[in-house]
């Protein structure tokens, strides 16, 4: 056991404090956002109505913003900050200060946006929907969230750059490399949403300009909207590739291929936004198809990931004496929440990914676009694969950072939590998929649509979603209990931050993987290739701009 010494390596307590600050925000968002999710499913079942003049689309906005932006961004930045600290030997004072500045800017921005949503000044959902015009403070708040995340991410990049300078000719630690890839992808992607907010929505909501170009705004948003989901996914992949092998007692199948798959995600996650706009009237079908092809390129690193993970599991199982084609499956450490919880997430990614292929295909998208099928899809990807992995990470990372231990009781509760989540999601996401195939729309309050027969067929599925949503809310209560226990009450001790090593240590990762000029150059070239001509077309052929509308209900 060559790793028993490295296993004791701790994240510097000063870095731990910043990571934990992120997690407090993330789990608060989860608790509140989860409650909103429960209320939505109850409203849509048709059996219950919101009290006190609270509006369905207001809580929908809260749910989307808290879960899609706040929970994810804060958790990811906190996790990656800790992972870089753990694998490089700690952040410098300058990097730490940068991280704190980023954290506070993000938090202030979040509170600004949240206030406007609560005042019913911004029921525009987190996808904005110009020409719906929210209060300018909402847009400014979101700008702060994005700029804050850049500064927060810069802390990771600073520490990575310092490590590279001190270790010339050496491949960087795998987890740090992966964290930096994800941060860089996030920065490139958020340029799009920053552009629409700063140059279009903010001046328009302040009254400096009268109209907004809707298609330009949507195109900039979706330039960001798809890489956003990979920004959620890659930290889960970090755990699957570089942490899970250590937890089960195995090795990383191949360090180099793990790096290669992350580079492919960096290149192919961004120039693909049109597949969210396939049914929009103003974009040329040839360019839509080109971006569909680029979208499908991420299948290659996904296949690589699936192969390595199961290769790691099988090799570990066989090393324990498992025989037969699937004997290795039984000897995996199913009693360990750090493994089982992310594993359930991993397994959910198989149907989730298949659904994604349907959504991004030119013609099949037309059947499911904006139906509740899509909501079912991303509740499998983001709200199961990603979130269960995040829960699994927090079960060892939170006690590691707070100097406590994951007790047997909490470990067991963690596994129960994951199964509760899985069952709740099977009901909710399953019913959403079926209802979507029948045409049921997403982002809609309960409606009988004037007594339509088709709409009547949707209602049983909506009731199933409320059942699933209720079970999921129990799952949220459980995870909050575990988080609070691990943060404040679990016994003092040392919990390991597991970092796996590669099977083949002689084989060094090729240094070309750290050639950022090359990868950023290719990423930029692909983006320019996929977007330049259609974007110029959109601007040149633009109709007169739209004035703002506030069609949602106000207090």
């Amino acid at each position, binding site marked *: 056991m060559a790793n028993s010494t490295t296993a004791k390596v701790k994240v510097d307590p000063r870095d731990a404090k910043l990571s934990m600050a992120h997690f407090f925000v993330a789990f608060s968002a989860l608790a509140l956002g989860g409650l909103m999710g429960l209320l939505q499913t109850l409203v849509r079942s048709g059996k219950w109505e919101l009290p006190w003049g609270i509006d369905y689309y207001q809580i929908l906005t809260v749910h989307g913003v808290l879960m899609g932006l706040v929970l994810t961004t804060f958790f990811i930045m906190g996790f990656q900050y800790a992972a870089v600290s753990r694998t490089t030997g700690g952040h410098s004072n300058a990097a730490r200060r940068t991280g704190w500045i980023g954290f506070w800017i993000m938090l202030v921005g979040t509170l600004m946006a949240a206030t406007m949503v609560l005042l019913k000044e911004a029921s525009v959902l987190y996808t904005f929907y110009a*020409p719906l015009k929210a209060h300018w403070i909402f847009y400014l708040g979101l700008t702060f969230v994005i700029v804050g995340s850049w500064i927060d991410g810069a802390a990771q990049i600073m520490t990575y750059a310092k490590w590279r300078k001190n270790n010339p000719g050496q491949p960087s630690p795998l987890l740090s490399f992966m964290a930096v890839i994800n941060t860089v992808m996030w920065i490139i992607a958020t340029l799009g949403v920053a552009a629409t907010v700063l140059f279009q929505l903010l001046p328009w909501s302040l009254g400096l300009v009268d109209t907004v170009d809707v298609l330009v705004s949507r195109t900039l948003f979706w330039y960001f909207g798809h890489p956003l989901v990979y920004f959620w996914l890659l930290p889960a992949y970090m755990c699957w590739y570089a942490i899970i092998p250590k937890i089960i007692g195995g090795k990383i199948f191949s360090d180099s291929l793990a790096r290669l798959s992350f580079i492919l995600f960096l290149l192919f996650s961004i120039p693909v936004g049109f597949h969210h706009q396939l049914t929009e009237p103003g974009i040329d079908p040839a360019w*839509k198809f080109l971006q569909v092809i680029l979208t499908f390129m991420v299948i290659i690193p996904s296949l690589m990931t699936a192969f390595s993970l199961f290769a790691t599991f099988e090799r570990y199982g066989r090393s324990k004496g498992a025989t037969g084609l699937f004997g290795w499956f039984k000897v995996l450490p199913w009693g360990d929440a750090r493994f089982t919880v992310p594993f359930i997430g991993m397994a959910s990614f198989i149907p989730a990914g298949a659904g994604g292929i349907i959504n991004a295909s030119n013609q099949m998208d037309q059947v499911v676009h904006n139906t509740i099928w899509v909501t079912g899809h991303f509740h499998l990807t983001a709200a199961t694969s990603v979130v269960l992995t995040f829960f699994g990470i927090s079960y060892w990372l939170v006690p590691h950072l707070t100097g406590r231990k994951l007790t047997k009781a909490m470990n067991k509760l963690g596994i129960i939590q994951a199964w509760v989540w899985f069952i709740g999601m099977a009901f909710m996401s399953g019913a959403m998929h079926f209802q979507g195939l029948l045409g049921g729309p997403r982002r809609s309050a309960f409606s009988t649509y004037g007594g339509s027969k*088709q709409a009547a067929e949707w209602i049983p599925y909506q009731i199933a979603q409320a059942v699933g949503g209720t079970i999921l809310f129990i799952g949220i209560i459980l995870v909050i209990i575990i988080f609070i226990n691990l943060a404040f009450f679990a016994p003092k001790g040392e919990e390991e931050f597991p970092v796996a090593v590669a099977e083949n240590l002689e084989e060094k990762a090729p240094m070309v993987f750290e050639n950022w000029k090359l990868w950023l150059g290719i990423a930029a070239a692909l983006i320019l290739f996929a977007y330049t001509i259609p974007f110029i077309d959109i601007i040149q052929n633009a109709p007169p701009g739209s004035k703002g509308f506030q069609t949602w209900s106000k207090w």
Partner: protein
Amino acid sequence: MHMHKFEKIWLTFGISALVVFLTVVGVSAFYLGNKPPSCLTTINVDKVDQTKPFDKPGLHKVEGKDWDYELVYVAAAFSYNPLKVEVPVGAKVKVIATTKDVVHGFEVAGTNINMMLEPGYVSEYTTTFDKTGEYLIVCNEYCGAGHHLMSSMIEVVK
């Protein structure tokens, strides 16, 4: 960089399947004409009611075109005009729609008609209604407080 033999086989199989899949999607789109709605026609959003064909919403028989009827819709928060139409079964219909205000959806449940209506753009889709029955049109893109009340009905009749 070393790659395991099985992984090479796995990736070769996977990438080949991907190429076949994309070819099928591409041929279907560009050879068989199953492209997603991309009309690329613009309109002044403030003058929709005065602009042809939106000055006369509803079903119109047309001659000398590849389709038999044009079905014209004008959407505005929170309704479609017309609210109900009857379409003869088997008719090839070009659905033409636009919005007078915010972004709306235009989805005919149980069919492949599903398109975004964006201010300033015309959305079109041509299809044949080959089964009788009631087809609900729903707005599937969030448009405000009455989003879930926005609907219309197509009745396909003998």
